């Protein structure tokens, strides 16, 4: 989308150079570069500081490292319990994404393509749920989870994340499903396929872009979620990466270099993933409105 519209823009510009365009663009560049510095500087400092010794940090707080300490990453990994945290988070992200795909995929299919009774009531319910603040249910939910023995378990947190992400995912996938021609699944039905076969073999593969977007958004949300993670998981062996890192950074305030190294380990996968799938990220996060 962006490339085609850019092309169009350039063509328009070539045919009819905008008034004063060449005079104004440098100012636009200067301001944008200033914005970019404000956005990037703190992140660059994080990378610099991850590679310093404690001693160098004291004398050179924000500049580039003079003698990069690549060993900091291994030490941070070890002392921060990053491996365990990332493993727990990987489990949480994996099952949250799969669970959301299943729940939201089936529900969106029913909304978009089946003769679902009370359709508008269900849809209204989803809209209300999306705009319901976390605070309206977190207190009874916590004590319900205590009663059900789900506090301090990964599956307890996964169920919560699936429930939180399903409503937006249903509405997003629905827009993809509505646009698939009816003839396709009718043909499959006439060939003797049942509903589940129609859904899984004909329809869902065609909604793959939507599923990918949902997966990215839900995965990112589960990766960095703090409020439920910090409230519902206290067992040190089960902490996801966000709370593992929080404990490490608040407990070891003298080890700024190692804390920065841990930060780098945590965010590099996100940045790489983002650079490969920029468009899906922006579209997906805009449609979810869940991350604040």
């Amino acid at each position, binding site marked *: 989308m962006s490339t085609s519209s850019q092309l169009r*823009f350039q063509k328009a510009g070539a045919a009819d150079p905008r*008034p004063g365009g060449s005079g104004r663009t440098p100012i636009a560049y200067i301001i944008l570069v200033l914005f970019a510095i404000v956005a990037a500087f703190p992140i660059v400092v994080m990378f610099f500081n991850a590679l310093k010794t404690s001693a160098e940090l004291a004398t050179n707080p924000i500049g580039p490292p003079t003698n990069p300490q690549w060993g900091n990453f291994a030490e941070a990994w070890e002392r921060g319990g990053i491996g365990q945290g990332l493993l727990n988070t990987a489990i949480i992200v994996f099952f949250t994404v799969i669970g959301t795909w299943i729940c939201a995929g089936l529900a969106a299919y029913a909304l978009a393509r089946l003769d679902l009774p009370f359709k508008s009531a269900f849809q209204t319910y989803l809209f209300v749920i999306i*705009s319901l*603040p976390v605070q309206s249910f977190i207190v009874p939910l916590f*004590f319900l989870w205590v009663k059900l023995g789900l506090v301090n378990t990964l599956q307890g947190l996964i169920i919560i994340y699936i429930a939180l992400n399903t409503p937006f995912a249903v509405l997003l996938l629905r827009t993809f499903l509505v646009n698939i021609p009816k003839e396709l699944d009718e043909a499959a039905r006439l060939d003797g396929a049942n509903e589940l076969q129609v859904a899984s073999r004909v329809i869902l593969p065609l909604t793959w872009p939507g599923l990918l977007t949902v997966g990215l958004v839900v995965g990112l949300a589960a990766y960095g979620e703090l409020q439920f993670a910090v409230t519902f998981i206290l067992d040190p062996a089960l902490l996801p990466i*966000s709370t593992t890192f929080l404990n490490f950074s608040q407990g070891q305030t003298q080890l700024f270099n190692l804390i920065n190294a841990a930060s780098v380990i945590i965010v590099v996968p*996100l940045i790489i993933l983002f650079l490969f799938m920029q468009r899906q990220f922006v579209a997906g996060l805009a449609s979810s409105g869940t991350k604040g």
Partner: protein
Amino acid sequence: MIDTSYASTAAPAASDPHVAGRRRPPKSRPRRSRLQRKSRRVALLFFLPAIAVNLLVIGGPAVSSIGYSFTDWNGISPPNFVGLDNWQRMLTDAAFWSVMRNNAIYLVVLVIIPTSLGLFGAFLLARIRRGSTVFRAIFFIPFLLISVVVAQIWRNLLSPDTGIAAALDSIGITWLNDVYFLGSQELALPTVIGVHVWSFIGFTMVFFYAAIKTVDPALIEAARLDGVGVWGEFWHVVIPGIRPMIVFSISFAVIAGLLVYDMPRILTGGGPAGASDVAALLINRTSIVGREAGYGTVLALTLTLISGVVIGVITYLRRKEEN
């Protein structure tokens, strides 16, 4: 949204008899209605997992909290009915009014700065001919970083011993040396909000940029031929052209400002002395740590009510303007 759903329910009803009528004539009628009933059951079955997990986690607890708000529930032992005591207590609770004030400030700043600067940045991005992809990637990355890491980056930078102040000190600039951004009564809240704005603003820029790119180029061209100038183009073509996205982004920021938890929790814990305390922190503290779950649900319901009213007003204003 609702319109298209009606269209999609109407479509099979219209096409079905046609298709069936063509393939197998008279006796298909009773069979089809049985099939229809079956397909409604299947549809419900498809919808069941989503709705079940939602009712368990969100719907059920949300409704039950209304009941708990009239009790002295501590989360564990059976609750006793106490009438409106909790609601009265809230009205005279200084902590409640203090977090409401902080949330209001939070909300206003989080709406105004990212929306205005985001629009400005997006407009500039749309005007340049090269490099917009690189700028967008740089702007978006702060939004992508998870909150614990964003908070840690800024805690380092703002610390008098290890951050910008220390760097300035080494070149002889000392006026930041004794400024404790996160430890000062006056600066804690603005600092927490500032960090949040930093991580949020790139998102609005990239989001508005995508919106501006959908504005009809012919309109922009026409405005240019009329000689409206850059500001005229911004105010009279771009802003009206992307108004729905601006409203969406504002509602998004309003909700984020009302419900904010992460940044104050990590950066200050609400301190010092409640200076950067917010509703979400107060509710968690009261009900889960302090075990005053009944009173906590009252605070939570109030927050829910406020966000409901705000969303309602925004939706109403938008509808009114559309008509």
